[in-house]
């Protein structure tokens, strides 16, 4: 199979504009007859469904949530990037493009990333018009902050709830279309298979989660916006329901899974505290604007803290190792996520960790509180304020910026982060890998598109903070409404598809058999216990650092676990009723295959890049060592059979505008 990225010709800055204006269109009267299925109502799906509805397509939109507003995007905290240069600090579309390519460790497609940067500015305008209450300056203009891996302030935010506010904007636009009748919404419906007719995507099989009934839905094309697969690790910052099933099902129908091993481990999450734990909580990257990361320089201090004999505040300034500032003076605490996470692991592996498990470092706001406090005292005209007053003012300033995050931290840990430094550790957060798509966001199955986190397109081997929201909304509002025309303009004479056609019935029967098969196992172990065990294998061998031996071992362990699952899983209840355990079982079954593919991909990529760190490939200073000679490609995997090796297809990445360099944040 030859992979064609369908990148339009022309120079980088003009590609999208030219392509857009020469793209085939579907006339309004034809749009009314064309049916489109959108699966997912996160930022990508809700924005796509709403916009396609506005354009006049007949949209059917699906979500396993009870309301579109509850999609996982709701949880995004820190912000969204856009190359507005409102701060006059030298930002530009090119700089955002360059930062994203570099941040992704030169493993993404130039053309896609440039388009993303171009439309980023439109997203902010759109969100403001919808009433998204972004943070403002006193003059009434929009406020910005910095995120990791960049040296400008281009991140727009709404307190620590940027994802919530952006999603509510898209959700409201979607609800408006629902009220106008252009979009039909199917809540609590889980897509369990794709239906293809003559090689083209023409519908889905969805399970009504309240009744257990399987439904056949036909359309002219299918758009997936089903989010990331970080929950393959069991513990992650993703919502509990996030899963790979939609993506994995289309892979089983012939779509390709690209770069599955590229996983983002976020450096600042609340550390794991016990076996019972069901998920991990992110402390937004925005905190690294003001928080300083450190561990005790002396091992004996770390031991004393772990044993509860000392506290962070007891450690003298001179005995603290602000290791990010020490190792990366140019970017300091704001190095990209992969770099910050690995650095934390290095310190903890050396024995400097500060929580009982050994896996934790400090994120300290004491300096920021003093700095903000002094500045506030100054602007209030207080001369010689005492330390208590400064601290009080400083805490208020920090509260205004990060109040909800601090409150969340305190609720979970029971500790006051204004008085004691936060304890944090890296955790699985985002998956850069995903369904392979071309420039049109179309998969190799004609008529099947993938948007948002579920595709692989824009972030290479590492995503910069605040760029997922940007990508989801770029794809949904400003890319797919155009590019879908490249497929649909050839379909204007295609009549509606009949959901009673053989292809639909066969697919429905397959799904029914699969679910019944799971019910019939009637073993002794819970779904959750298998998921937890899979997560442990993935974290141990395919997590923050990987090596050939471990990955080989992990693949074997996953295969054995999968066998055990199909022999011994127990699912209570029946297939035809509301049954959350059955829902989970079907998802874990898919994770058990996806996990193996991730290890396979990681094993195949004999280099370190971005979030993929192979211990065998590192520089003398311990930094990731790429092999541009041999690995400047997208690894797109074709699934054949569970018992056979998947087939690797390569899309070579061509860099015409950016020179490949060793990433340095020193």
């Amino acid at each position, binding site marked *: 199979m030859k992979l064609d990225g369908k990148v339009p010709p022309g120079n980088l800055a003009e590609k999208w504009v030219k392509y857009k204006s020469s793209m085939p269109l579907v006339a309004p009267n034809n749009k009314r007859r064309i049916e489109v299925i959108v699966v997912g109502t996160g930022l990508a799906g809700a924005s796509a469904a709403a916009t396609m509805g506005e354009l006049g397509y007949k949209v059917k939109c699906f979500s396993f*949530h*009870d*309301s*579109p*507003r*509850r999609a*996982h995007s*709701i*949880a995004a905290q820190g912000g969204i990037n856009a190359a*507005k240069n409102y701060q006059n600090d030298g930002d530009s579309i090119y700089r955002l493009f360059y930062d994203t390519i570099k941040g992704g460790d030169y493993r993404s497609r130039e053309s896609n990333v440039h388009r993303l940067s171009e439309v980023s500015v*439109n997203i*902010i*305008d*759109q*969100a*403001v*018009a*919808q*009433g998204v*209450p972004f943070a*403002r*300056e*006193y*003059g009434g*203009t*929009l406020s910005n902050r910095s995120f990791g891996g960049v040296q400008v302030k281009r991140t727009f935010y709404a307190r620590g*709830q940027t994802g*919530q*506010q952006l999603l509510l904007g898209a959700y*409201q*636009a979607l*609800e408006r279309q*629902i*009220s106008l009748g252009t979009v039909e919404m199917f*809540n609590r419906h889980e897509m369990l298979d794709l239906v293809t007719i003559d090689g083209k995507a023409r519908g889905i099989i969805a399970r009504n989660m309240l009744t257990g009934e399987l439904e056949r839905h036909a359309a002219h094309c299918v758009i997936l916006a089903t989010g990331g697969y970080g929950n393959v690790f069991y513990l992650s910052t993703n*919502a*509990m*329901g996030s899963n790979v099933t939609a993506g994995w099902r289309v892979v089983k129908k012939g779509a390709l899974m690209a770069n599955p091993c590229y996983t983002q481990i976020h450096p600042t999450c609340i550390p794991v505290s*016990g076996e*019972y*734990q*069901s*998920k991990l909580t*992110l402390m937004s990257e925005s905190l690294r604007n003001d928080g300083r990361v450190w561990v005790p320089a002396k091992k004996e201090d770390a031991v004393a803290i772990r044993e509860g004999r000392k506290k962070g505040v007891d450690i003298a300034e001179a005995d603290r190792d602000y290791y990010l500032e020490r190792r990366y003076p140019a970017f300091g605490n704001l190095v990209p996520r992969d770099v910050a996470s690995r650095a934390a692991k290095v310190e903890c592996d050396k024995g400097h960790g500060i929580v009982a498990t050994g896996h934790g470092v400090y994120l300290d706001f004491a300096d920021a509180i003093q700095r903000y406090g002094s500045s506030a005292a100054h602007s209030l005209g207080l001369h010689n304020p005492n330390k208590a007053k400064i601290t009080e003012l400083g805490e208020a300033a920090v509260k205004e910026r990060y109040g909800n995050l601090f*409150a*969340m931290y305190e*609720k*979970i840990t*029971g500790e006051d982060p204004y008085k004691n430094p936060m304890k944090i550790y890296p955790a699985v957060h985002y998956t850069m890998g995903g369904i392979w798509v071309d420039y049109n966001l179309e998969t190799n199955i004609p008529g099947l598109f993938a948007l948002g986190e579920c595709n692989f397109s824009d972030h290479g081997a590492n995503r910069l903070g605040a760029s997922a929201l940007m990508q989801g909304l770029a794809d949904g*509002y400003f890319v797919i*409404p155009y590019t879908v025309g490249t497929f649909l303009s050839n379909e204007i004479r295609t009549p509606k598809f009949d959901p009673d056609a053989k292809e639909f019935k066969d697919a429905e029967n397959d799904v029914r058999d699969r679910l019944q098969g799971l019910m019939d196992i009637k073993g*002794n172990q*819970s779904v*959750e216990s298998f998921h937890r065990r899979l997560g442990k294998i993935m974290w141990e061998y395919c997590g923050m650092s990987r090596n050939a031996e471990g990955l080989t071992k992990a693949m074997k362990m996953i295969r054995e676990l999968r066998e055990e699952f199909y022999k011994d899983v*127990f699912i*209570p*209840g029946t297939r035809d009723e*509301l049954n*959350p*355990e059955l829902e989970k079982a079907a998802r874990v079954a898919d994770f058990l295959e996806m996990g193996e593919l991730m290890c396979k991909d990681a094993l195949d990529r004999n280099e370190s890049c971005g979030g993929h760190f192979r211990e065998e490939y590192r520089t003398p200073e311990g930094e990731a060592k790429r092999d541009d000679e041999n690995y400047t490609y997208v690894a797109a995997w074709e699934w054949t059979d569970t018992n056979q090796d998947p087939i690797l297809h390569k899309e070579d990445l061509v860099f015409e505008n950016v020179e490949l360099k060793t990433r340095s944040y020193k």
Partner: protein
Amino acid sequence: MKLTLKVWRQKNNNSKGQFESYQVEASEHMSFLEMLDVLNEDLISNKKDPVAFEHDCREGICGACSMVINGQPHGPMKGTTTCQLHMRSFNDGDTIYIEPFRAQAFPVLKDLMVNRDAFDRIIQAGGYISVNTGGTPDGNAIPVEKDQSTLAMDAAECIGCGACVAACPNASAMLFTSAKVSHLALLPQGEVERQKRVLGMMKQHDEEGFGRCSNVTACEAECPKEISITNIARLNREYLSASIGSEKMA
């Protein structure tokens, strides 16, 4: 810690429910939902039907979790969703009653799960600004006063959980509705549709079977996002002036 749980079990909307008693061993570091996970793992290992409850983000933002704990929606801690409530708020030996959110407009689906589609329909009735994608002015072309924007954001923080309804003796959804009306009415972008919005949303609110507010203020006390009741006052003002406005137009 050892706990006795009295959990509402109900097979579906057509069947009658009742409390069932369970013993569970939990640690104070667990979240409330992790404690229920332990119960469910135990039920499953005994081949019994686990307790169905809604949850997703488990960090207090998606609004999925919804249960009444010892008579309080989202439990005893102020400004906290059930998923963020931790067992350190309880004592060894406690008996805890767990029920679904109860309201005519929120029919029980199973155990602790209820149907909250009515909230989506209230939003459909006008909880938006009618702009299509594209063709919008530059973000900085519409300055918004910082304090005004802060107030709008305070209201916009509503997570659509429905605790306000469960807390209210009238099962009123006016705190939820007022949060959206306020969010949009406080911003210049929301000005154009201000009257139409409040009339449409309140009409739908009433049609769904939610009661009207009679100033009990239980909603504000139980709201996990501490949405202020002043929003209801604003809703009432908006509603009144819109009603007068629409009479004039008629």
